[in-house]
């Protein structure tokens, strides 16, 4: 293997030892390099010189990723080799962008800095991922308590509405706060819901998919079996009313639809589900002012009354201007004006990256998400066990759907929601949940291969 470039070496390595940890190690080196490149570019562009500061933003996450790599090597040797580097690349790009926004904030004389927090939160999230890998080596353990997971998810979803600890920010009740610590329980709830649906559907898929009468060439399930879908639709509407956020509600309902469709193979559920979802969203936009305002801003972002309204389309339009300024190859990291977009470090980090990396860069980021989702679906496809199949599908789909809703919102294709961009946006609970998803996918892929070997 002498005299081959890294690009050539990678397929060779993977063919020789499929899904190996060695391949993951090679990719981790590469990703650490990309992360350092981003930080250096930002420093050069903003302050015309490089300083050792960047080590602070580079070293801790890189070391954590290597610790996670070591844990994977120890406990789940056969797990998928692409997931960790891909997630870490997104995480690193997020940290770099937040650092860049911090530099702009310092120049402006502001005090709202996020990068340092993000660095330590990323390390913490990767540590939690390592713990998840260690604890859940056999994913079938999760199958034992679907109803417990479901109940825990409901509690977590209701928590933000609870007195004392509940918090409402920018119109959405998505947070709980104890002292200075704030947390978005909905992020964890999506994992618990996926576990619940997988457990529930595996035991119920027979009746759900077979019983029913034929009407107009379509098999209509009996009224009793429509119960779960109706119940969950009502629950999603309740989430919408309580949390005042359309995105969260659509995310959970979409997850449910895809999982029930996969478990039963009946298009009927998807059809009726989509009709219910759209009806729910339209009714909500008429009934609730906060959803209506988001709809108005989405339909006519450039109308003066929406642009100037409190919580109107100002943020969206700034994001669109930013991305337009970015053009195809971007303004370059550190050379644009993403700081002009409100909440550029969290909700609008996608627009900030769009401005500085351009269309080419944003497509690269979307391709990374696509690869993560692809790996997840592949794990679902190859796994022997139905519960694990459904869980892997649910977890990867929920990640993909979240990216779709967020990116669509920022680009003005969908109404804007309060969901976070996975791995990129500043915020601990989202990082934690998404790294936990990666950890679970790893464990699932490992258990799939272990079964083949035994």
């Amino acid at each position, binding site marked *: 293997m002498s005299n081959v470039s890294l690009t050539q070496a*990678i397929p060779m390595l993977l063919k020789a030892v499929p899904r190996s940890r060695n391949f993951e190690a090679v990719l981790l080196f590469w990703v650490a390099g990309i992360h350092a*490149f981003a930080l250096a570019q930002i420093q050069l*562009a903003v302050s015309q010189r490089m300083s050792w500061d960047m080590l602070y933003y580079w070293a801790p996450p890189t070391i954590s990723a290597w610790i996670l790599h070591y844990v994977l090597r120890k406990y789940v040797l056969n797990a998928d080799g692409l997931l960790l580097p891909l997630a870490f690349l997104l995480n690193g790009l997020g940290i770099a962008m937040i650092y860049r926004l911090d530099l702009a904030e310092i120049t402006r004389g502001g005090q709202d800095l996020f990068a340092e927090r993000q660095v330590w939160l990323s390390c913490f999230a990767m540590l939690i991922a390592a713990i998840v890998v260690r604890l859940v080596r056999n994913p079938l353990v999760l199958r034992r308590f679907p109803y417990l997971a479901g109940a825990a998810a409901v509690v977590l979803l209701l928590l933000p509405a609870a007195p004392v600890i509940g918090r409402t920010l920018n119109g959405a009740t998505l947070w709980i706060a104890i002292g200075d610590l704030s947390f978005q329980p909905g992020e964890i709830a999506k994992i618990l819901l996926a576990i619940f649906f997988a457990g529930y559907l595996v035991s119920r898929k027979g009746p759900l998919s077979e019983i029913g009468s034929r009407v107009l060439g379509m098999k209509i399930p009996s009224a009793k079996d429509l119960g779960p879908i109706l119940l969950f639709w009502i629950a999603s509407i309740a989430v919408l009313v309580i949390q005042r956020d359309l995105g969260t509600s659509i995310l959970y309902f979409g997850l449910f639809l895809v999982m029930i469709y996969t478990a039963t193979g009946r298009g009927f559920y998807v059809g009726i589900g989509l009709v219910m979802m759209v009806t729910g969203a339209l009714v909500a936009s008429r009934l609730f002012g906060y959803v209506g305002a988001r709809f108005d801003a989405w339909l006519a972002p450039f109308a003066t009354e929406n642009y100037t309204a409190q919580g109107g389309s100002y943020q969206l339009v700034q994001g669109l201007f930013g991305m337009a300024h970015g053009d195809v190859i971007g303004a370059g990291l550190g*050379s644009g004006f993403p700081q002009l977009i409100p909440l550029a470090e969290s909700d609008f980090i996608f627009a900030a990256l769009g401005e500085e990396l*351009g269309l*080419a860069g944003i497509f690269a980021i979307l391709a*990374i998400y696509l690869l993560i989702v692809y790996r997840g679906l592949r794990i679902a496809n190859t796994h022997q066990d139905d519960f694990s199949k459904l869980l892997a599908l649910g977890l990867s789909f929920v990640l993909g759907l979240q990216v779709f809703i967020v990116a669509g919102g920022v680009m003005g294709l969908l109404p804007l929601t309060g969901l976070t961009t996975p791995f990129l946006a500043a915020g601990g609970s989202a990082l934690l949940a998404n790294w936990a998803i990666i950890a679970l996918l790893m464990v699932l892929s490992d258990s799939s291969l272990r079964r083949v070997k035994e």
Partner: protein
Amino acid sequence: MSELALFLIRIGFVAVLWVFILSLLSVIRADLYGRRVINRIAKQNAPLLTAGSAASLGIDDGDSFNPSEIAVLTGRTAGTNIPLENKKEVLIGRAPSSDMVISDDFASSIHAKLVHVGDDWVLQDLNSTNGTNLDGKKITTPVTIKSGMTIRIGTTTFELRS
């Protein structure tokens, strides 16, 4: 920093991102289509074995291993046995017409075959998409099966027993 240098860095960063992604795509291509190139070479170099042509060679290695059945170890049909007596060829694949049907997403419809050559059974991969493994190694040329060797196709493993 000159403008030109910044411009190059800026293009460079996006380029590095894409090189990373494209190299991953090449990996995925490999796991979707398998090692196509090697299979093609194997097909060119290894003429298809048939019991007739093999019998004319009159091979006898004096080996005492005379398997009488295929024992399926894992997979959907785990635990079943397929007798080999009086058979010259065993066609393995997903097609219902195969002698040994493997219903597995990773098996090709005509996946591999076992041919009785002299006293031995020889395993040949029939240019399958995901390959045939013998004791954990993907086979590229026809291989003689010895006692205790396990064959894996997709998620099904089996061995020959006397």
